């Protein structure tokens, strides 16, 4: 792999690193806020891959996909943080290991 000129491969490599870091954040951390941030990192990595594919194949439709994914991500964070606050009110914890009952 050549370092210059920068092409699709380089963007995909960055995307792969970001995705792995997001997975690691979700797996290793137990703080629910940080777990949600890890999910955001994964979505961002996917977006970067889609934009890179779109740019190097010349199809601008990928930009619409990324826009829709951003919307889904925003809705997901809003609901996720709402659940987190409800959990903290009832259980006084945001540790993922202590919230295992799927009910309140």
């Amino acid at each position: 792999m050549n370092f210059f000129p920068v092409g699709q491969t380089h963007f995909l490599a960055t995307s792969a690193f970001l995705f792995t870091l997001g997975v690691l954040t979700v797996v290793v951390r137990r703080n629910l806020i940080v777990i949600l941030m890890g999910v955001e990192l994964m979505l961002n990595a996917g977006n970067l891959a889609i934009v890179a594919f779109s740019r190097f194949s010349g199809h601008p439709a990928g930009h619409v996909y990324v826009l829709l994914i951003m919307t889904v991500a925003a809705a997901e964070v809003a609901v996720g943080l709402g659940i987190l606050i409800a959990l903290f009110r009832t259980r006084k914890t945001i540790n993922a290991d202590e919230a295992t009952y799927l009910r309140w």
Partner: protein
Amino acid sequence: MSHLLPDILFYVFSALSVAGAVLVLVNRNPMTCAMSLVVSVLSLAILYLLLSAHFLAVAQMIVYAGAIVVLFIFVIMLLNLTDEELGRFRFSLFKTIGAFVAVATLLAVAPDIRVSIPAPAAGDAGAPAGYGSTKAVGKLLFGEFLLPFELTSILILSAMVAGVVLAKRELQPKKTHSLVDWLLGFFRT
């Protein structure tokens, strides 16, 4: 020389975005994690600019740095966690296995990324005129992708309703007769 500057910018900002992600992973304080997430997200916006996705770069800044991270910070400050509530990092077998699997997946994918895509020809033709502009994306969004766009509004509406329901939830179910309470009671039993 004119092709060198974007390449250097790519390396700088992709390193920054990966560094921000690493800091999200290792920082114990969620507020520091949120700030690292801002660094990662804004660097990604610059990468979008390098891919000539101008509209998406601005949307990324507004939606992620302007809305999502602010929401995170809002919740972090609202909860105001103490040091004990943050908890200590503990090793466990499952975490080790999970981390191993994640890294192994990256290593398994790496050769495919390297091999399957031919390196760009020396003179990448560059994006066609108007590629990634607001006009181009808008034409696609309101033409070919009109149905997904309209479905998105339903998604946002349901997220809004869910946010209100979750935020209004009481510890003890109230004895009221609104439709929402009836539905909640129905699903609770």
